[in-house]
């Protein structure tokens, strides 16, 4: 479903010689139902890879393919059906309830006045049920706890009905209990909804427990290395953080 084709991730300089290459990826592909974690040291380029996948950053070379289509050829309106995104921190918006937040995920399907149809309300209710948010649906997003807010944002992404969900460090600002809860939830969603879920994380131990695939940025070799379950923890850690 998602393919990296000879992708070079980095920043463009003034000329080709001045380009900063962070890492290369060989051909890699990810399928629906995969729960993939991207790990790497700080500054290795996790966010840059994510931004490239989201189409917010241009790759130095190569292509990101979604269902065979190069990402750059997909229009903004169409991209909505392929990609949804959850930032690592959402601080809440005054007077925006959990229900309204999840409803914003339906907005690509609504008319110009953002009016929700019966169908949209149905989908929002399903999402609320699946994420067990019923008791929080009328609560102001500003008054939710960090963990609840993260789940509500996942709900917004779910309501978007995209094939691929990208989450930037979804566990970064949470306590241990909530970290596990979110990881379990994502693991479950990937399986049940047949979505491809793509996260970046520093919580490597949790990724070992819940993800079925890990890709790691090796900053020395400037390459993206791929691991499948069962993971050899030492090998993964060695490849990212060295000896």
């Amino acid at each position, binding site marked *: 479903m998602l393919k990296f084709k000879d992708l070079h991730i980095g920043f463009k300089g003034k000329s080709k010689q001045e380009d900063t290459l962070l890492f290369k990826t060989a051909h890699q592909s990810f399928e629906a139902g995969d729960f993939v974690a991207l790990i790497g040291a700080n500054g290795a380029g996790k966010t840059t890879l994510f931004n490239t996948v989201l189409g917010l950053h241009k790759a130095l070379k190569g292509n990101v393919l979604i269902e065979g289509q190069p990402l750059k050829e997909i229009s903004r309106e169409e991209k*909505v059906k392929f990609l949804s995104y959850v930032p690592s921190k959402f601080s809440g918006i005054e*007077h925006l309830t959990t229900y309204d937040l999840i409803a914003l995920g339906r907005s690509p399907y609504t008319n110009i006045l953002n009016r929700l149809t019966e169908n949209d309300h149905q989908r929002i209710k399903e999402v609320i049920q699946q994420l067990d948010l019923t008791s929080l649906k009328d609560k102001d997003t500003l008054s939710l706890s960090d963990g609840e807010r993260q789940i509500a944002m996942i709900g917004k992404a779910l309501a978007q009905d995209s094939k691929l969900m990208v989450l930037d460090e979804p566990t970064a600002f949470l306590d241990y209990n909530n970290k596990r809860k979110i990881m379990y939830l994502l693991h479950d969603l990937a399986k049940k909804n047949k979505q491809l879920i793509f996260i970046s994380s520093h919580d490597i131990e949790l990724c070992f427990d819940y993800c079925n695939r890990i890709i790691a940025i090796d900053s020395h070799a400037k390459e993206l290395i791929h691991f499948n379950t069962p993971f050899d923890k030492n090998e993964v850690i060695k490849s990212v953080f060295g000896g």
Partner: protein
Amino acid sequence: MTSKKKYWKQSLLLLIALIILVMYDLTLGSYAVSLQDVFNGIFRYNETNSEEMTVHVFRFPRVMTAVFAGIALSVSGLLMQTLFQNPLAGPYVLGINSGASLLVALSTMSSFHILGSDVGLVFSAMIGAFGAGLFILISSLYVKNKISLLLIGIMFGSFAGAMVNVIQAYADPNNLKTFMLWSFGSLQGIEFEELGLVGGLVLIGLFASILIIKPLNLLLLGDNAAHLLGINVRLIRLFIILITALLTGVITAYCGPIAFVGLVIPNFAKMIYKTANHYHLLFGSALAGAILIVACDIAMQLLSPYLNLPLNALTALIGAPVVMWIIMRKF
């Protein structure tokens, strides 16, 4: 479902309040006029009846101007607050009014008379407002901090103010007087025949804002999230600045730089509607804004035998404490 009805009910209440205040305001002035004469003055105008003439020539334009100014400034304020994700944003604070003032000063007081006519005045105010809006928009790409952006707006406002001072220093005394009176803010600047033009432009701005309700709602999530939900963020930003320039420009040209309404009213609307949906916030802000300026006009009319209060002084007297309150609560 029920909550939607609640919003409409609130809007209906505001509308009724507005209509009552407008009717009351129409009877006020240097002498009281009956509602019957008000009706005749608007719909069955007869020049020989002095009461009807007063209503037709002075009061109806004055009250309608108050309504249009309230709608225009509040809607601009709401758009600015969403665009910059900042509850303290507004056309006055961000220097949009000052941009308009600068160009109005240039066209009324300098020898630069290309834009001398009335239409020219409106047009130059819009250009000034658009220029200031664009300046703030570009600054916002570099300055991420909300308070810093406000400071840039305030600095831009002082800079434009200083330029106006320089122009004033060289101005002809008659032109200077015209400009000073304009800068106090007044609702008397629009004649009956011009109401159609001003009202039309304000309605165009309001209608254009309704068309971007969805992007406005999504902008609350931040630029990246809005982009990934299918919004062309750059285009929408420019569109917001254009609408604000149109609304603020036309009102500033005719009524002078009216302070604080655009900042206070959207916050008030958010407080009573308790929603983040711009569909309701737009109507709420427009209605509440109209109510505030009509109420200010009523206050000015009632106080006029004892005290001549310029509009701008009155809105600042109300607005400044509200702004302090918002700062204490939110920052």
